[in-house]
């Protein structure tokens, strides 16, 4: 399946999203969601509404960060759905930190065949086309790297997290930090994973993230030759994952298992040709 029509729809959705972002720049309200660390703006909501309008021209359901409810009847194991994050890294955007994206991906029975992620402050567009991934006009191909030579980035959940669990996550963060060239926290899971595809980072991991943070970027990283390990979380939108070069991703996955943080499984491998 070449999914060219879906690719075009993905581009249209991103085009609609970036149009709203350019129009509302500096003119939006901010409020909190699940916790004081979890914020949303009126721009997020407007971008999502506009992108959804575009994507609903296809036969697939749309799962978006701002409109999704746990009661929504979407079965990710069985269905093909569009997954959108109107702004991944809203806190960064509000604070003027240049790591945030608009992301659209397709989840097809928990595989990720297509993604388009735009990172406006860096003038970067990541996308998959057929079996390849691109950054702007450049084809991406992940190079192998040992864990010791890896720069990694982590993404934590903005939701309230149990103290004991958080302590374990921070311990893992320290362990990975000390086994690599370091672990960053950019504040945008999708940017982290796209950076893996672009060879800037060698691995990215996320704990208790949401599927809309990562669906588009998973497709991009995977078609660039990165390995992706994942595990579904407490509810169907939650996800733990590692994306990275084969060596780095495997070792971080092993560390997660050894430390009883998560038990991730490798999803279908794709070679970068």
């Amino acid at each position, binding site marked *: 399946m070449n999914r*060219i029509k879906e*690719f*075009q729809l993905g*581009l*249209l959705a991103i*085009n609609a999203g*970036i*149009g709203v972002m350019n129009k509302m720049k500096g003119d939006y309200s901010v409020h909190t969601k699940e916790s004081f660390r979890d914020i949303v703006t009126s721009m997020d909501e407007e971008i999502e509404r506009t992108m959804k309008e575009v994507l609903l021209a296809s036969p697939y359901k749309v799962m978006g960060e701002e409109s999704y409810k746990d009661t929504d009847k979407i079965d990710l194991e069985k269905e093909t759905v569009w997954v959108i994050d109107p702004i991944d890294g809203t806190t960064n955007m509000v604070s003027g930190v240049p790591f945030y994206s608009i992301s659209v991906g397709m989840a097809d029975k928990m595989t990720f065949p297509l993604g388009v992620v*735009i990172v406006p402050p860096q*003038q*970067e*567009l990541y*996308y998959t*086309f057929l079996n390849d991934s*691109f950054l*702007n*006009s450049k084809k991406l191909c992940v190079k192998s790297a040992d864990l010791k030579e890896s720069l990694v980035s982590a993404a934590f959940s903005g939701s309230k997290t149990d103290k004991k669990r958080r302590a374990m996550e921070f311990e893992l963060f320290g362990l990975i930090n000390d086994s690599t060239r370091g672990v960053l926290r950019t504040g945008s899971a999708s940017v982290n994973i796209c950076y893996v595809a672009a060879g800037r980072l060698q691995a990215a991991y996320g704990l208790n993230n949401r599927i809309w943070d990562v669906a588009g970027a998973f497709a991009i990283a995977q078609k660039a030759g990165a390995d992706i390990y994942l595990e579904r979380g407490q509810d169907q939108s939650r996800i733990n994952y590692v994306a990275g070069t084969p060596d780095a991703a495997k070792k971080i996955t092993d560390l997660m298992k050894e430390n009883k943080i998560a038990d991730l499984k490798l999803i279908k491998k794709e070679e970068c040709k």
Partner: protein
Amino acid sequence: MAVRRNTLKGKPMAENNEQIVIVGAGAIGRGFLPWLFKPGRYEFIFVDKNKKLVCELNRARGYTTCRIKNGMPEKRKIPVSRAYTNEEFNIDICKNPVAVFVGVGPRNSKEATKNLGKVKCPIILCENDPATVADVKQVLPEAKVYFAIPDVITSNTASKADLAIDPLTINTEDGVLHVDERAAGIEGDISFCPEEELINKHWTAKLFLHNTPHCIAAYLGALIGVKYVHEAMQCGQINEIVNGAMNEMLTALKLKWVIPHDFLEWYAGKEIRRFSNTLLFDPVSRVSREPLRKLNVEGRLIGAAQICLAQGFVPNNILKGIVSAIIFDNEEDADRPLLYMQKIFHPSILLTYIIGLRKGEVLEIVLEEQFASIVESLEKLVAESKKAET
């Protein structure tokens, strides 16, 4: 001389003969390069990813190349010692290789040379981008890899009449091959020159006085649906744009570089004559392929326009070339994501994210302002060309 039958597993025919290996049996490799060597001086071994072509070369054990010299065709039958696919080829097959020439397209040079690790003789890259030398050195760090500039237009096909006699016939001009002098030692009609001269003089002229107007002619030709570059040049408006682009580059280069002006004038004149040469059968499809590569920020279109702007003038004809490359419409092209993007994205997104211009830089501002009107003028050109046809 001990001669033995060449097989895929065995050595090439004559034990003591020297071989030229040509990786990429396309326009440059098959059409142009063999003319540089005296007939019989070297055996030719071809390597190509196209299995069908490899089979045909092995079956026919030769092919015809037709050189257009002083307006007259001159044919030569080139014997093929053996042809291999990239996977089959191993340098140990050659007893005495004196040089490996590579002409596979800049994007393919790394992949096409990755199994040449044991090659001791010079590897000469006849690609349209000096950066390919560094690319190939990444995969062959020990190899002697040099840049070469084929100053020639070579078709990857020929006239129907010639193809009917030999389906492998290929047309070429009587061109010149400029090669880095560190590869000197190969006997042939080759212009060896110091690296500095090769890049500063010959590459600058090739990039901006050949590649720039040549691809503009091809993109405009693609718009009006012609098959060959000379047919595009027969359209008055296209001819005017291509000549205009050439003059813009000539003006900019004279202002910018210390290259003798008479050399630049001579170069520009010969190029314009080349594009109109009806004997070359230079396909629009070949010259216009991979528009994203041709829209590289430092390349023949964007780089050319930047030089003109830096010299203080807006290159209106080159801008038309840039827009015609952006709206190039070929479903088969390797760069076809651009085809979908240009139909969906606003020009400001295309110019910054895809082409790589910085928001607010002069070229981005000028192109964004003029994009719609240039598209309109190109649509008009297409309509008028269709009207003229009927």
